[in-house]
């Protein structure tokens, strides 16, 4: 970890800073470190929202706090100690592999449909970040053989519960929406439920496995 460059902290208006990092692993590590700090470090008390993404972590603070004063370098330095599986839950999602793009994915990857399913169920995924819609989680850990581009033009309606892949990610659509990822199957688990605590089944850091039903 010593060779990883220090994060670059970019001002982002009165209430936030954007921390630029080199990749997903670094984002995951700093996101966990900041979450740990929010539980115990008074310097993190002003943070109200933290939004991890592919190469950035956005930290938004209360109106009476100064985002420029956040000790991000200290949290970055402490990441190895604090970032050990803050969220060590493993969620197992049972999938009916009958998605409308399954055959296309097999063709694009040169695998059989069974091999696609075996590779998709064979991996351990981690939620890298959310953001597209409530409860949507970008899962990393996808078998590199399953990397396929998203559809040239998005579907007008992807059904709720669709299990999909695109680029280096897999995901489950929490609700029906337009979407351009390739659909492998469906799962029945509620991904987002405002009456549940926590409402989102998958949060940054959560581990996920898929099993075939």
């Amino acid at each position: 970890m010593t060779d990883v460059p220090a994060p670059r902290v970019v001002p982002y208006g009165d209430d936030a800073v954007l921390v630029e990092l080199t990749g997903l692993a670094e984002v995951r590590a700093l996101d966990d470190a900041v979450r740990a700090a929010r539980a115990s470090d008074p310097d993190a008390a002003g943070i109200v929202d933290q939004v991890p993404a592919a190469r950035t972590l956005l930290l938004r603070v209360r109106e009476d706090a100064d985002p420029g004063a956040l000790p991000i370098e200290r949290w970055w330095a402490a990441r190895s100690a604090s970032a050990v599986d803050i969220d060590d839950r493993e969620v197992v999602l049972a999938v009916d592999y009958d998605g409308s793009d399954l055959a296309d994915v097999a063709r694009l990857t040169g695998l059989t449909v069974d091999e696609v399913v075996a590779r998709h169920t064979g991996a351990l995924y981690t939620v890298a970040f959310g953001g597209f819609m409530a409860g949507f989680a970008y899962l990393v850990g996808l078998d590199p053989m399953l990397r396929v581009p998203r559809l040239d033009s998005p579907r007008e309606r992807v059904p709720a519960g669709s299990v999909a892949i695109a680029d280096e990610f897999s995901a489950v659509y929490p609700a029906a929406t337009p979407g351009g990822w390739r659909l492998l199957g469906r799962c029945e688990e509620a991904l987002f439920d405002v009456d549940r605590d926590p409402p989102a089944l998958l949060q940054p850091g959560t581990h996920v496995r898929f099993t075939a039903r």
Partner: protein
Amino acid sequence: MTGAALEVIDPGLLTLVEDLGRPGWAHVGVGRSGAADAGALRLANRLVANDEGAAGLEVLLGGLRLRAVGDVTVALAGARGPTWLDDRPVGHEAVLELRSGAELRLGTVTSGLRTYVAVRGGIDVPSVLGSRSTDQLAGLGPDPVRAGDVLAVGPAPAGWPVVDLAPVPAPPDRVELPVVRGPHADWFEDVLSRLQAGDWRVTPATSRVAVRLTGPALARTPDHAGRELPSEGLVLGAVQVPPDGQPVVFGVDHPVTGGYPVVAVVRRYAHGRLAQVRPGDRVSFVHGRASV
């Protein structure tokens, strides 16, 4: 006040229940939402001695008609227009006592876009993830208010209104949005100067999600032409430039992440102004260094 309510006779174009929103859920894709002009909701709440975060009504362009069920105390703030209590004209930023059966009627607003109606005790609808706000992007919170709805009023706070009205300066003829540099200002040629020099007009595709502007297209530097940006977190007031070069300024129901460069950010003290611009308005960007 127990059992008091507001009966909606006519919601006008769009009336939403809003409080100060639901911070803390952005990491699972749920934005803050809340009153677009939070300062106006806070002022209206203070006038009726509510907690500043009590839920009130956000009325787009006026037209709302309400009938008091039981005696209620209300106050209006934000966009101004003629207002009547039964047949008597009444003012904004003032404490209004409505006897049971009295009708409050908001005419078409003459300046601004969103008027806030606070009621002593707050609008008592179920809270979702800690907020009674409608988030139009995420589809969370109460549905828009409809004719015939009877909105329960919560228990009155312990305090009493301490002033009858609050003086508020008249809105300026031309809206100025003070901005500071955003994270990707360097993707564009001299972008802050060009934003400030431009004559921008608010388009009809403007909502709680974003204020969309049209004007001289902003061009990327040759180094950044065609470059893709992985999605990253967004904030209220972020000025994003999509490939057509026409800036989009994000409002309270903004998506939590976005994939186009953010070149500038509207200062916090002007977020209320941003909520009050109307389609067709001309706006200018100014350097946001000074605080107002």
